[in-house]
């Protein structure tokens, strides 16, 4: 029979019991610094996080089904990396507010490792959209959605961004923009079959109607949402813009069906004040 020391027995408690579901991420980070052996135990626990936000200056938010913790500390990088590198980590969302030096240190380390970060949705909330191109730490087999901001400054990079591996096979690309739709580079987005375009500034209903007619005529996309939360669409104007007799649907004034030539399929356009949906119906 093996006789264990009191210290060994204590370690056994941490090794055998799954304390991860009882401690939030803040406590786990403190616990992992208690000793080398406890660190390896804590690092083996499934982080079970759903969302991670990087704000700035080593300030992180970790969200799971049972907690929502904001952690800010100088020496967090090692602990955060141990979480982000965990092979069982499957994040619903990674939100990036800033790419400052502290984030760069983490991201460089993530890019260096072979194992990729499994995230379903990656959101870049600043104007540095081209950062997506160099985000090699993303597991592209898992990545379904990317959210970017397009400004006048990043306009020139948009072609590169949309042709990057990270954006090629997405289920949905969300683009936020404060630009005037009249100067927005719609043409570049013709290669995006699934797009959620959110304007947050001036409206240009005329331009939007023109763009929609164009993509419908050329049968380029699967589904697009276009919205403007600051200046909602003028619904009467939009209804007037899409008034071709054969596209109207009796009893549904906000819906239009545009047949796709040589097929029995059609585009459905739903005109709402807040959002216009254009969808290829098969």
């Amino acid at each position, binding site marked *: *029979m*093996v006789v264990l020391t*009191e*210290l060994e*027995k*204590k370690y*056994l*408690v941490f090794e*055998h*019991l*799954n*304390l991860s*579901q*009882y*401690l*939030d991420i803040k*406590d786990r980070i*403190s*616990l992992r*610094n*208690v*000793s080398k052996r*406890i660190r390896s135990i804590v690092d083996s626990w499934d982080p079970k996080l759903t969302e991670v936000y990087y704000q700035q200056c080593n300030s992180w938010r970790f969200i799971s089904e049972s907690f929502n913790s904001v952690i800010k500390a100088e020496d967090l990088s090692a602990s955060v990396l141990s979480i982000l590198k965990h092979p069982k980590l499957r994040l619903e969302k990674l939100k990036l507010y800033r790419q400052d030096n502290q984030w760069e240190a983490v991201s460089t380390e993530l890019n260096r490792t072979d194992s990729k970060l499994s995230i379903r949705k990656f959101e870049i909330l600043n104007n540095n959209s081209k950062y997506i191109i160099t985000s090699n730490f993303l597991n592209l087999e898992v990545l379904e959605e990317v959210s970017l901001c397009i400004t006048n400054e990043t306009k020139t990079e948009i072609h590169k961004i949309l042709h990057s591996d990270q954006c090629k096979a997405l289920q949905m690309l969300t683009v936020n923009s404060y630009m005037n739709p009249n100067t927005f580079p719609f043409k570049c987005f013709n290669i995006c079959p699934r797009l959620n375009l959110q304007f947050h500034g001036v409206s240009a209903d005329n331009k939007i109607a023109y763009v929609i007619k164009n993509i419908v005529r050329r049968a380029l996309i699967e589904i697009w949402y276009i919205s403007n939360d600051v200046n909602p669409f003028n619904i009467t104007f939009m209804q007037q813009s899409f008034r071709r007799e054969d596209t109207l649907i009796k009893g549904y004034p906000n819906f239009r069906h545009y047949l796709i030539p040589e097929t029995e399929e059609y585009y459905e356009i739903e005109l709402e004040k807040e959002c216009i949906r254009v969808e290829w119906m098969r």
Partner: protein
Amino acid sequence: MTSPASSSEVKYLIESSEGNTFDVSGAALRQSNTFNAMFLNIGADGPIPFTDYNEATLKKVFEYCEHSVNEENYSGPKHQDDLSKWDLNFFNEMDQKMFIDVINASNFLDIERLTSYCCERIARMLRGKNTQEMIKVITLPTAEELEAKQKVEEKKAAAAKKVAEKAAETAEKTETLEELPVQQLVQTTRNKLTRKYLSFSNE
């Protein structure tokens, strides 16, 4: 007495690390998944050996099981605030050493309810504390203490090495003397004595 558990009246003999035996009811034992997997269907000849744990620990664990026999089936982790007065007393009267032993035994015996309460209790001890405070709670040696301990051990090892080297040297000298032929040995001793005599006469 041991037999396949068909009714809650059946008593089982449990053997502790000291070799002592004591009775536990079948109903209490059935809360242990380890027991269920090993003995429930086949029965046990003689006392059931849980000899990795001492009598006090096992009695404490089965005291909990006996108490919770009539409670509803376990349905996942419970918050500490939901514990009954009896549960709280049960935990409060244990010192840390006993608590650690009970956790390990409960974990080995796979008693879900007790193990989960223990987890919640440990978590409660750690929640909201920084690393240094956690070290104190768990009463683990700090990095500095470990370093000091290592230094002492290194010093001890160095001293032991020195002693061993000296012993080896002495052994080598003795060996050299033993290897010398008798004639030469006599001559060497004579030379030594002469040198000693000369040094005395010079004084």
